[in-house]
């Protein structure tokens, strides 16, 4: 029998308008305690205004061994980057 609490991945939004970012993981018996633990472990220094937790087993991830076929084909396709356009000055910051 496994007596360990499940692993949860923690995502925190630093301030309004930004998106949640993965900050780390922790163990907790359920989602509610995972949020409380995340509050205590990851927001002690005023890091966040919102917390998401998701049980780690529910995250589907790409496999590191598929790195070649997954990502290398895009390396040689620089024309997909929008860096060849001259942006008019009056557009301002983008």
């Amino acid at each position, binding site marked *: 029998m496994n007596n360990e609490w499940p692993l949860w991945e923690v995502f925190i939004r630093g301030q309004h308008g930004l998106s949640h970012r993965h900050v780390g993981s*922790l163990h907790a018996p359920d989602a509610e305690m995972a949020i*409380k*633990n995340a509050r*205590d*472990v990851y927001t*002690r220094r005023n890091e966040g205004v919102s917390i998401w937790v998701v049980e780690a087993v529910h995250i589907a991830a790409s496999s590191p061994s598929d790195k070649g076929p997954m990502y290398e084909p895009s390396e040689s396709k620089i024309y997909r980057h929008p860096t060849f356009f001259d942006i008019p000055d009056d557009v301002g910051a983008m």
Partner: protein
Amino acid sequence: MAPMTENAVDQAALLQFLLRMGDNTLILGHRVSEWCGHSPVLEEDIALANTALDLIGQTQLWLGLAAEVEGQGGDADKLAFLRDAWDFRNVLLVELPNGDFGQTLMRQFLFDTWQSIMLGRLMKSSDPRVAAIAEKASKEVAYHVERSADTVVGLGDGTAESHDRMQAALDYLYPYVGEMFLSDEVDAAMVAAGIAPDPADLRSEYDALVGKVLAHATLAVPDGKYTHKGGRTGYMHTEYLGHVLTSMQWLQRAYPGAEW
């Protein structure tokens, strides 16, 4: 009768009231900090350390104001580290040993619930300094009570072993609960000045909140009516307070006036 002005407030009684508030958070904060590095899991270790730090932070405010009211040129540090056991005014509950993790969390829950109700009333204090401290502390304590109540439910309604340990913790601690609701002439002076409520008036709200959580935790409230007392009046502390002070005050006793 003279109109109620700040000068009419019995300053000696106000000092006692502030020492009671500050000594509760100081001694419990120190007790909880004893778990640092020893908790059953990392997450609980950090959470408990946060709670201890919140309580010590509240202590700085309460004892800082106490030193101001005392007017002897002291400060929160002097009150915390240079008084002896008979000068402390905390309730006995907070000086009791940590026991196992369940006993620590049960003690925390029984205190947090009282403190959250007390601070709610103090936010309406006629003394703006008291109201400001209560306002700041109440947000911290709202989280403490949510967390300790959840843990009491989780362990009480957990395995057979965790349930038995939580029931044993409740049976041991419950006779110390009543002291938080005793009233004396200090409380009467605070009520008359509109500074603080009569502790006895908080009991029914407390019983309702605690009863709800303990029922959810499948724990039985002990029916004995006996109450250990003597902490908040300074009449007699338990033997445990001296041991707390020995480790807490060691540095200032060995190296008087040491700073960093």
